[in-house]
C-alpha cells in the first residue's frame, strides 16, 4: 500500500476497531448495510409524497398541466445540472479518500458543498418568486397573473379576501368559518383534459394552456412545496454531513484503511440527487 503524500503527512488516523466487532471487515460491512437501510427509509419517506402526487395528477391532470407553467424550467434544469455535477464531485471525493489523497478529498468535498449552496440559492430564488406572485398553497394561493404560455380568457373571479376554493363564499370578518355546505367539487366538469381544452390547444399551438383557470390549482402548489421543501431539508442535512466529513478529511483521518464516513455520506448525497432527478420532470416537465 503506497502512502500518498498529503497535507499533514498522515492518513487513516480516524480509524479504530470498535470493541464489539471481531474484524475490520465486519465493522465496515455493518456500516454499509446500515446506511443502505437508512436510505431505504428515506426512499419510503418520499414515496408518500410521490403517491399523493400520483393520486392527484391521475384525478385532475388539468391542475398539473396548468400550474406547472408557473415554474421556471430553466432554473429547474440548472439545479438538476448542479446536483448531478455535485454527485460526480462527491464520488470523486470518495475515490480520493480511498487513495488517501487528502488534498483532493478536501477540494472535492468543498466543491460538492459549493454545489449544494448553489442549489439552495437557486431554490430560494424560485421560492421568493412564488411568494411575490402569490403562488402559495391552500388558502394563500392568490396568483397575480396567469402563467406564461397560458391563454386564459378572463381573469378568474376571486372574493376580495383570501379564499382558495372555487365558488368560494366570502369570508366572514372574523376570518374564520366559511360556509362549508357549499364545498364545490374539485374541478369543473369531468376530471381530466376536456374536449374544449384540446380544441383550444389546437387553435393556439403556442399557448400551453387555453381555457379558464381550473379549480383548486392550489393543490399543485401544496404538493410542490411539500416535495421540494422536504427535498431541500435533506439537501441541507447532506451539506451538514459533508461539512463535518470535510473537517475530518482536513485532519487526514481518511485513507485506504478507513474511508467509510466519506463513502456513506456520498451514498446519502447520491440519493438526494436521485430524488431530485425524479422531482424535476414530475413537477417541471409536465406535457
Amino acid at each position, binding site marked *: 500500500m503506497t502512502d500518498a503524500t498529503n497535507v499533514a503527512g498522515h492518513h487513516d488516523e480516524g480509524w479504530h476497531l*470498535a*470493541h*464489539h*466487532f471481531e474484524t475490520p471487515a*465486519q465493522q465496515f*460491512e*455493518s456500516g454499509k*448495510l*446500515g446506511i443502505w*437501510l*437508512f436510505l*431505504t*427509509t*428515506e426512499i*419510503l*419517506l*418520499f*414515496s*408518500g*409524497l410521490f*403517491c*399523493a402526487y400520483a*393520486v*392527484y395528477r391521475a384525478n*385532475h391532470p388539468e*391542475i398539473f398541466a396548468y400550474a406547472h407553467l408557473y415554474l421556471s424550467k430553466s432554473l429547474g434544469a440548472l439545479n438538476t445540472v448542479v446536483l448531478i455535477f455535485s454527485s460526480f464531485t462527491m464520488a470523486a471525493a470518495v475515490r480520493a479518500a480511498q487513495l488517501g489523497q487528502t488534498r483532493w478529498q478536501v477540494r472535492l468535498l468543498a466543491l460538492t458543498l459549493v454545489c449544494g449552496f448553489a442549489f439552495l440559492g437557486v431554490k430560494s430564488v424560485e421560492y421568493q418568486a412564488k411568494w411575490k406572485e402569490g403562488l*402559495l*398553497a*391552500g*388558502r*394563500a394561493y392568490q396568483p397575480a397573473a396567469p402563467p406564461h404560455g397560458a391563454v386564459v380568457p378572463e381573469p378568474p373571479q376571486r372574493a376580495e379576501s383570501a379564499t*382558495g*376554493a372555487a365558488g368560494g363564499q366570502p369570508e366572514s370578518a372574523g376570518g374564520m368559518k*366559511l360556509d*362549508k355546505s357549499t*364545498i364545490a367539487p*374539485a374541478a369543473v366538469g369531468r376530471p381530466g383534459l376536456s374536449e374544449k381544452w384540446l380544441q383550444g390547444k389546437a387553435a393556439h399551438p403556442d399557448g400551453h394552456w387555453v381555457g379558464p383557470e381550473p*379549480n*383548486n390549482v*392550489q*393543490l399543485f402548489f*401544496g*404538493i410542490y*412545496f*411539500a416535495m421540494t421543501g*422536504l427535498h431541500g431539508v435533506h439537501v441541507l442535512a447532506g451539506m451538514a454531513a459533508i461539512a463535518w466529513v470535510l473537517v475530518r478529511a482536513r485532519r487526514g483521518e481518511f485513507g485506504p484503511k478507513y474511508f467509510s464516513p466519506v463513502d456513506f455520506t456520498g451514498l446519502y448525497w447520491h440519493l438526494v440527487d436521485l430524488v431530485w432527478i425524479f422531482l424535476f420532470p414530475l413537477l417541471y416537465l409536465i406535457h
Partner: protein
Amino acid sequence: MTAIPTEPRFLGGLAPREDNYLTHQAGIGSWVFTLDHKRIGVMYLVAILVAFLLGGIFALLIRVQLLRPEGLLFHGSDLSVYKTYNQLFTLHGAVMIFLVLIPGVPGALGNFVLPLMLGAKDVAFPRLNLWSFYLYVLGALLALASILIGAVDTGWTFYTPYAAQTNTAVIPLVFGAFILGFSSIFTGMNFIVTIHKMRPAGMTWFRMPLLLWSLYATAIIQIMATPVLGITLLLLILERLFQLGIFDPYFGGDPLLFQHFFWFYSHPAVYIMILPAMGVMSEVIATFSRREIFGYRFVALSSIAIAVIGFFVWGHHMFPNGQSGPLNTIFSGLTMLVALPSAVKVWNWLATMYKGSISLQTPMCYSLAFFFLFAIGGLTGLFLASLSTNFHLHDTYFVVAHFHYVMIGGTMFMFIAGLHYWWPKMTGRMFNDALGRLACLLLFVGFNVTFFPQFLMGTHGMPRRYAVYKPEFQPYHVLSTIGGFLQFAALVLIAGYLVHSLYRGRRAAANPWGGSTLEWTCSSPPPHDNFPTPPVVRAPYDHKHLLWNETLGGYEWQPVENETR
C-alpha cells in the same frame, strides 16, 4: 485489581458480588451516556413501564366515566364537557401505541437479550442505540407537553378534516410521534445489521433462536413502514400550519388519502407489536416444555410471511369509509390470508407441547393465557375481515374488544411473560413464583371480564369513542369497568413482588429455567462485556443436555462425553 465492587444501593444490598453490567460503573453519568445495550434496555424498560402506568390511568378514567349512560365524570348539556373524555381516549391510544406497544418488546427486552442470544458483545451500532432511547424520551416529552398545552381530542388516528381543524395541541403530539418513529427506525436498523453481520460462527440463519427471527421480521417492518407514518404526520403538521390543502376537501384535497397513508403504516405497526411477542412465545414454550420448537422452519418463515403480507391489508380499516367496492374486495381477501401464518404458529406451539415436559412456572402461565386470548383476538379478526359483517361491526366496541384481545392478550401478556422469563438474567434475582402465577390468573380473569362484554356490546350496536350511551348498554359497561380495576390490582401485585425481589429475592443462577439459548450461559446478571470468552454455539432448543443442579439452583450444561445413551 480495584476494590471488590459492591451492589448498587438501589438494588438493596451491600454484599460483595461479581462484577456485572450493573456494578461495572457507578454514577448517573455512567447510565446517561452508556453504550451498553443491557443498560439501554433497562432504561427503556423503566420508561415504558411509566408510560404504561400513564396510559392505564387514562383507561381507568374512561371506564369510570362509562359506568353511567349519561356519564359519571363528564355529563351535562354543554357539549364542551365531553371534550375531556375525547382527550382521554385519544391519549390512552396514543400513549399505549406509540410509547408502550411499539417500542415495548424490542426496546425493553430485545435490546437486552438480542446480543446475548447471539453471543455478541453488543448491537452493531451502540451509539445509535442510545440515540434511539433518547429520541424515545424526546418524543415522550413532546407528547406530555401536548397534554399540558391542550390535550388532543382527535382519536389516536388523527383523521382529517377534524384533526386539521380542532384547536387542541395536535402539532406537539404529532411531532412527538414523528420523533418516536425515528426511535423505532433506528432500533430496526440496529437489529437488522446485528442479525446479519454479528451472528457467531456456526449460527446460520436456521440455527438462530426464533426470537431473533421475530425481531428481524419486526425490524423489516419498522424500517419500511415507519417512514410512511413520518411523511403522513409531517403533512398533517403542514396542513395545520400552512393549510397546505392536501387533505382538506375545502381546498380540493382528499380526506380519504390521509386514511390510506395513515393505515399504510398503522396496520404493519400492529405486526410490529405482535411479532416480537410471538418470538417470546417461542422461547418460553420451548424452555418450559423442554422441547425443540416443532416445525422450526415454518415458525421462522411465518414471521417473515406475516411481515410481508401485513403490508398489503391496510384498507380493511376503511371498508365503510368511501373506498370503492373492488378495493374493498381485494383488501378483504388479502386480510384473510394474513391470518394463516399466525394460525401456523399456534399449531406449531401446541405441537411443541405434545410429548414435552411441561413446567407451569410464571412465564409459561402467561403463554397459556396467550393461547386463549390470542385465539379469541385472532378469530374475531375474521368477523372484521369479512365484508358483510364489517359494515355492522366497524367502529363499534367489537373492534375495541378485538384489538385489546390481540394487543393486551397477545403483546402485553407476552411482554410480561418475557419480563418474568428474563428477570433473573437482568437483575440476578428470582421473584416469588407462586405470586407470579396468582397475578397471572388475576390479570387473565380481569382482562376477560373487561373485554369480553365489549364484544357483546359491539354486536348490539354500541359505537366506540362515545362519552355517553343509550341506557340498555349499561350492564356491559359496568362489568367492563369492574374488570378494569381487577387488571389494575393484578398489575399492582406484579409490580409489588418484582420490586420486592430486587431487594429480597433469591440470587439467580445463570440458567434458572433451563433455557437452551446463549443468554443463559453467562452469569445472572451478565458481565459488562457479555461473554469474556466467545460461547460455544449449539443447535437451538437442544434441552437434552441441560440438567438441574440443586446446589446451583439452576440448570447446567452437561458435556456430551458424559452421555451414556
